[in-house]
């Protein structure tokens, strides 16, 4: 079999390289954007699963810690104990504050109590921070340019970095864990906390207990871990999804345009060839196959190049910019592959029509 499509494609190697490069660029962009997005989503999932509580209780109207500080009086803790079905209630202090020079982080603390549901292990730290020290997530530490033993400013106070944890939970991996008394002082009210993590008794239904809490403890919202994660996820999706969709859409159009232009110009240049092939008995479908094959090869070459570059560039970016966390999922690579194949199919529409319209009688014109 004469590999006609390949011969046509490789007859102009520079054009092939530009085309594959253009598609690769589009693929690279899509792969990185998706990995960035998946990494955000993944961290939220970690938050919900790392805190093994059934319910999150917060001040009414402040479910999203990035946009509003929940402040509950300590009396709420004892009120919660009164609600039927509540087995334990653990306070959590949390506030979005500047850590180091500029970067915002979730500064948190877990007061010790009789019903410890959120252990220090859940934060990925070896031991609780002592007074005057802080455990920083890797991203925050890199951003602030500090390591164990260094001092870092949080609010008006300065803390010594006790530990840097790569798995310190909290939204977007930017969290700092303080001693609870330090935190209460820093936040300005020792009689208040932010969230209560509630464990319900084995025979109780979390949804019903949540309703009972909101009913019996005025000024609180109670969300299941899933609902709480959903609020945070929704936050990200509302902020990011439209942007992501636009970037992916533009990248798709760029890739499509590059393939379409390449295949179209290659087809126009070969008008006579296609006419000759028609004259000597090629069916339209045989000629379409030659066009489509070129398009698919360009697309796949671009895909392999772009996906490979995506992983490499992603690693480099992650090293250079700590907050740039990426999560590559095989589903996303499959999605991009499908998108690239759609690109290559759409790109052939105009060239195929062009081939169909070639009059084989041109072969007799000199």
């Amino acid at each position, binding site marked *: *079999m004469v590999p006609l499509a390949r011969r046509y494609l490789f007859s102009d190697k520079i054009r092939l390289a530009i085309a594959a490069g253009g598609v690769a660029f589009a693929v690279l962009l899509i792969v990185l954007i998706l990995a960035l997005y998946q990494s955000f989503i993944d961290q939220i999932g970690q938050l919900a699963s790392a805190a093994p509580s059934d319910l999150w209780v917060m001040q009414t109207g402040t479910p999203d810690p990035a946009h509003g500080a929940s402040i509950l009086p300590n009396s709420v803790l004892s009120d919660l104990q009164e609600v039927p079905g509540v087995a334990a209630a653990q306070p959590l202090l949390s506030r979005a504050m500047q850590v180091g020079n500029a970067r915002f982080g979730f500064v948190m603390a877990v007061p010790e109590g009789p019903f410890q549901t959120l252990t220090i292990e859940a934060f990925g730290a070896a031991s609780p921070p002592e007074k005057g020290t802080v455990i920083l997530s890797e991203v925050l530490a890199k951003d602030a340019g500090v390591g164990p033993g260094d001092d870092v400013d949080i609010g008006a106070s300065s803390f010594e970095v006790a530990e840097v944890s790569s798995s310190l939970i909290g939204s977007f991996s930017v969290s700092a864990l303080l001693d609870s008394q330090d935190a209460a002082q820093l936040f300005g009210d020792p009689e208040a906390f932010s969230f209560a993590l509630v464990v319900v008794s084995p025979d109780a239904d979390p949804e019903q207990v949540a309703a009972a809490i909101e009913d019996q403890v005025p000024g609180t919202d109670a969300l299941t871990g899933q609902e709480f994660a959903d609020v945070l996820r929704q936050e990200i999706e509302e902020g990011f999804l439209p942007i992501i969709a636009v970037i992916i859409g533009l990248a798709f159009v760029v890739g499509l345009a590059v393939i379409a232009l390449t295949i179209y110009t290659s087809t126009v240049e070969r008008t006579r060839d296609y006419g000759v092939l*028609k004259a000597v*008995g090629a069916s339209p479908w045989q000629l379409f196959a030659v066009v489509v094959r070129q398009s698919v090869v360009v697309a796949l070459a671009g895909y392999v190049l772009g996906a490979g570059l995506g992983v490499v560039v992603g690693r480099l970016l992650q090293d250079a910019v700590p907050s740039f966390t990426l999560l590559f999922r095989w589903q996303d690579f499959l999605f991009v592959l499908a998108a690239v194949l759609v690109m290559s199919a759409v790109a052939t529409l105009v060239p195929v029509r062009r081939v169909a319209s070639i*009059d084989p009688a041109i072969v007799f014109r000199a």
Partner: protein
Amino acid sequence: MGAQAVETRAAEIVLEVRGLTKVFGSGDAAFTAVDGIDLTVRRGELVIIMGPSGSGKTTLLTLIGSLLKPTSGTVHINGLDVTAMKESALPEVRRHSVGFIFQSYNLLESLTAVENVEVVLNLAGGGGRTDAVKAEQLLTDLGMGHRLHFKPRDLSGGEKQRVSVARGLANDPELILADEPTANLDSKHGPEIVLLLRAVAKELGRAAVVVSHDARIQELADRILWLEDGRFKDNPGLAVAPAEEKTTEV
């Protein structure tokens, strides 16, 4: 092949054209390029069609090769009415029944000589190594064994036309149509190509219709037809014009 066999096969009609007419344009601009042509060509025959520029030679060949729909009239190839066929059935006819040879060769520049021949074999559904072997054999038979893997740009005109002949013969067509095959060749290589076509017609029992201005090749024809304003005319000036054949054919 014995003389007996050639004679019986020569009786078979390969091409039969009746009342073939092509009008370009319409109304005042209408122009009749081919005007009620009748033509019969048998196995083993080499027919040369001559005529002034613009007389309709190429148009006639295009019609016979089913690359152009006639305004009226019929073309039968091997008894099959190709003018009545649907467009979708024509590739099959072009692939198996007709071999084309062109003035400007029309080789695919991206392919080597042997691939130019192989590619039309592939179209017929082969695709395996046998196509390549057959293409190599054909080119070798035409004296191109030493140029199999040359690209057209590295071949001389005469060599290109040989590749083009090999391609035309690849799918064993009964009918060979050539438009000015010698126009770009010198006085040595021009007649050589027509001699080749003549040998193909005689030895393989094919019918060949060659359009040409070229006086150098007249003597190679079994019949010469003179086309003028889309019609065949008697032309006493022709060097070779077997009178009795012409009256039976035209």
